[in-house]
């Protein structure tokens, strides 16, 4: 049981680290949001799953389940709100410099 918990804990720290690295490396707001929101949600969820496996069915694990459901509902809404404010504020999405054939393809 505790071995599974160690695996999930490792996954959680791994995803948190890569989310932060991605947020520092990517070039504009939207791509940063992609990296940060996804990896943060996954790291928190895997931490909660690991703790629920460790604790079994008790009052602690029910509270953790409530926090997990709440996070699963609100975290996409928060990132959507940031993305929408950036989109309506007029920040253009970054695009890779592309070859001529590709440009003619998208008219």
């Amino acid at each position, binding site marked *: 049981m505790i071995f599974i918990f160690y695996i999930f804990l490792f996954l959680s720290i791994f995803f948190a680290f890569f989310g932060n690295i991605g947020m520092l490396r990517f070039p504009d707001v939207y791509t940063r949001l992609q990296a940060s929101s996804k990896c943060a949600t996954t790291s928190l969820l895997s931490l909660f799953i690991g703790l629920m496996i460790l604790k079994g069915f008790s009052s602690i694990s029910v509270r953790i389940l409530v926090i997990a459901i709440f996070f699963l509902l609100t975290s996409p809404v928060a990132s959507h709100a940031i993305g929408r404010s950036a989109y309506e*504020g007029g920040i253009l999405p970054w695009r890779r410099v592309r070859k001529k054939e590709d440009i003619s393809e998208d008219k």
Partner: protein
Amino acid sequence: MSVFVIASFCFLATSLLSLIRIIIGPTAQDRLVGLNLIVPQVVAIMVLMAINFNRAIYLDVALVYAILGFISIIAITKYLKGKKLHE
């Protein structure tokens, strides 16, 4: 030194990384992304500490913290929604 303390150290170290984005972000939205990333990590630290102290009542603080982080981000984006970039 239990596993939980070491794990919370790791989360604190990664939140130092997202502090860098708050410092250097060129626009306000970039800083908001950093704030959005700090909140889940601090919630993770709080949950790990609550398991370490073995008290169920400490988890309520984490829940309230998550709710308030969500509300503050929504309030700031509500202001930013109507504004253009350089104004």
